[in-house]
């Protein structure tokens, strides 16, 4: 009997979402010490409020960007330009709305959203083209747009911060639907779509194959260019939506600051979620948890009152610890000490993909 229990615990322990979820829970619980009401969620005028809701709401743009990043990383690539795309998309939408005689007209807002997403798609095609067709290394190819894209965003906003006053647009990042923040719903829908697209079709498996062994995939007849292009386009689309959310939430577009460094948080979220930077197997669920961990960490820093000048150091320390806990090699060191000779994750000294913690 206890054997079976042990086995059950063993499989939970081995599940790949185990560590990310545990870390998230610990992070949230640690807030309770400082804010006993941290877990309370209440209904005010038909809207849900609470710290947990806030974490999800503020984390939604990161969740979106990280989703796209996951697929890019799974193919063995990386997309550094997502921050720039966030800025561009927000800037274009706000510019369009600011030019409307009636900023509250739904049609105008819809056109603005459409234009911004269309431009994001074009930028994704650009990235995908450089990587898949021209064959530039992803980190360089997307660096181009990372730098040039900021310039483009500033060009759109004319170097100013565009402020708008549009209640339909405000819905995207700051509004509510069915009592829940709209941004959470949007992130949820995109997550589900991404999961459906990758796991209900063969897309996920083919992407994983390309990311683990590009040559073997080619010789199996996988047309990897097609899938590479697709993931960069999807990634840019996600970043574009995130850009709408960010600008809508503050009702303004700042070509300089919007989405700044979000690419790094997104990469971190992907890695914490259990997808290796070397490509191959990916976990969208893990990424969502990873993004929430990063958002929860920011929230925690405020609630426990870390002095502002040390927040970055604090964040760095927590991230390092999280990555260490995530690393099977690191865990093996400790479990081996406890119980010598147990079947551990084989120490693959045979030239293997190295787990890259961050």
């Amino acid at each position, binding site marked *: 009997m206890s054997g079976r229990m042990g086995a059950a615990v063993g499989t939970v322990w081995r599940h790949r979402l185990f560590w990310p979820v545990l870390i998230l829970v610990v992070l949230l619980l640690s807030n309770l010490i400082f804010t006993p009401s941290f877990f309370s969620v209440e209904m005010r005028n038909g809207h849900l409020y609470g710290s947990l809701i806030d974490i999800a709401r503020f984390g939604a743009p990161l969740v979106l960007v990280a989703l796209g990043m996951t697929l890019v990383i799974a193919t063995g690539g990386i997309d550094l330009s997502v921050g720039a795309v966030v800025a561009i998309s927000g800037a274009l939408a706000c510019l369009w709305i600011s030019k409307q005689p009636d900023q509250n007209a739904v049609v105008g807002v819809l056109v603005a959203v459409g234009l911004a997403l269309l431009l994001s798609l074009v930028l994704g095609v650009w990235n995908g083209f450089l990587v898949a067709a021209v064959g530039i290394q992803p980190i360089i190819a997307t660096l181009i747009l990372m730098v040039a894209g900021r310039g483009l965003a500033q060009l759109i906003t004319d170097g100013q911060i565009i402020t708008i006053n549009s209640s339909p647009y405000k819905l995207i990042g700051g509004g509510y639907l069915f009592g829940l923040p709209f941004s959470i719903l949007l992130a949820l829908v995109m997550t589900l779509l991404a999961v459906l697209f990758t796991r209900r079709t063969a897309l996920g*498996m083919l992407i994983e194959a390309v990311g*683990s062994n590009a040559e073997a995939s080619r010789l*199996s*007849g996988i047309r990897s260019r097609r899938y590479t292009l697709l993931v960069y386009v999807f990634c840019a689309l996600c970043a574009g939506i995130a850009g709408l959310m960010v600008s809508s939430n503050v009702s303004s577009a700042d070509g300089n600051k919007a989405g700044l460094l979000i690419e790094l948080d997104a990469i971190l979220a992907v890695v914490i979620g259990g997808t290796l930077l070397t490509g191959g197997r990916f976990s969208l669920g893990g990424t969502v948890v990873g993004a929430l961990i990063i958002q929860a960490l920011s929230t925690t820093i405020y609630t426990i009152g870390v002095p502002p000048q040390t927040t970055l150091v604090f964040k760095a320390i927590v991230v390092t610890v999280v990555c260490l806990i995530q690393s099977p090699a690191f865990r093996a060191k400790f479990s081996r000490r406890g119980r010598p000779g147990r079947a551990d994750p084989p120490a*693959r000294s045979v030239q293997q993909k190295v787990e890259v913690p961050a």
Partner: protein
Amino acid sequence: MAEPAILTMTGISKQFPGVKALDNVDFRLLPGEVHALLGENGAGKSTLIKVLTGVYSIDEGTIALEGAPVRFSGPSQAQQAGISTVFQEVNLCPNLSVAENIFIGREPRRFGAVRWQEVRRRAAELLHRLQLDLDVTARLSDYSIAVQQLVAIARAIDISPKVLILDEPTSSLDSSEVDELFRVMKQLRDEGTAILFVTHFLDQVYEISDRITVLRNGGLVGEFLTRDLPQLELVAKMIGKELEVLEELEEQPGREAAARAHAEPVLEASGLARTGAVAPFDLSVHRGEVVGLAGLLGSGRTELARLLFGADRADHGQIRIGGRPVALRGPGVAMANGVAFCSEDRRAEGLIEDLTVRENIVLALQASRGWTRPLSRRRQDELVEAYLRSLRITPANPELLVRDLSGGNQQKVLLARWLITNPRLLIVDEPTRGIDVGAKAEIQRLVVSLADDGMALLFISAELEEVLRLSHTIGVMRDRRMVATLANDDDVDTERVMRAIAEGAVA
């Protein structure tokens, strides 16, 4: 038996999730002997080597080197203790040069700086010992898997180890390289090195080994002196039953060769060539015909096959498939025309190690359907189950990661991937590499029956006997040129093919 063992392993057990890979195994190695470690695919040979060198930890048991208990944390530590290993899946860095691969981690230095001149000179010397004349500054990945294997061996023998472990070093070598390797092994043995040697070629066992240890299903069957153990008995010990003689394939293909060569052609290449890889050649493969390619290492067999699959693009000549001219822009086009290619290098060009057995098997079929038309899970399971059974892949669990399978079973997975696509022309490059005696006969039988059912096959193997036994037509390659095509009739034998290879023309 006065000589004390240099290495003793006692009561070794190793459990993987769901598989007991080693169960209370004893093993010892005497100085100055070649000791063959034998067993079927998945018997635990590689695992024994990996627990010895510290790649895996052991659950139970002890290891003693020269009488002192040891436990290594990894191959590099084992190497420092004098145990040099060439693993089954050669683990070198394909992006580095040959010379760098041989000396990586122990480069000769002066004042801290690597002496590259010295590295290159000594690398060339070492390879020369194996009668190998390579450009040591070229990238390793430019060379075939056989050469890579030899480079790994060169690396291992450089330091005159006390113990040399070779896990299937001959699986992709031609007989002449095998001879060179054996010469070096004998030399090392006479200098007192203890050599552990894994192979599925029984004639090699009898040629070089002094002693044999047989494993079966993770258990120890016994240790024998080679000269006291006749081959039939050895096979019986490996497979665990008196064998219903693995008789040679009955019918010589010769009788039918002429008939098959007049069937309708599936693929015709004329003047096909790729500069630097293969000189222009003509070749046609007909329905139901097995065309074998014979030639020495580096003669261009693999390069030729790659052109027919569009893995590399030809820069001259034409290909007609099913009578229609086809521009082979890539593997996708070839597959759409019913051509399949099973690469010799299962690790770099074949399997996706991070994926499961099931995913690896359905990969090519799925790729040709595109991402929008996924095979239902039901269909996948049916297909995979069928091939797990017919190729006897063990463990027969489709959800295992393919890298956790033994080498021979991985090879069968790769074969299954192409069989389920049901191609018109199947190109197999060393399909029996690393496959045990019993399974090899089964795969050969499979080749025959596929051809009987009308499939065209291009069969490449370093084993000339195998080529002769299976093919209706034999293409002889030499120096990246097809020098002859022989109809495999009664007066073709190994000798005649060897002569054609040597002389570059039909004798």
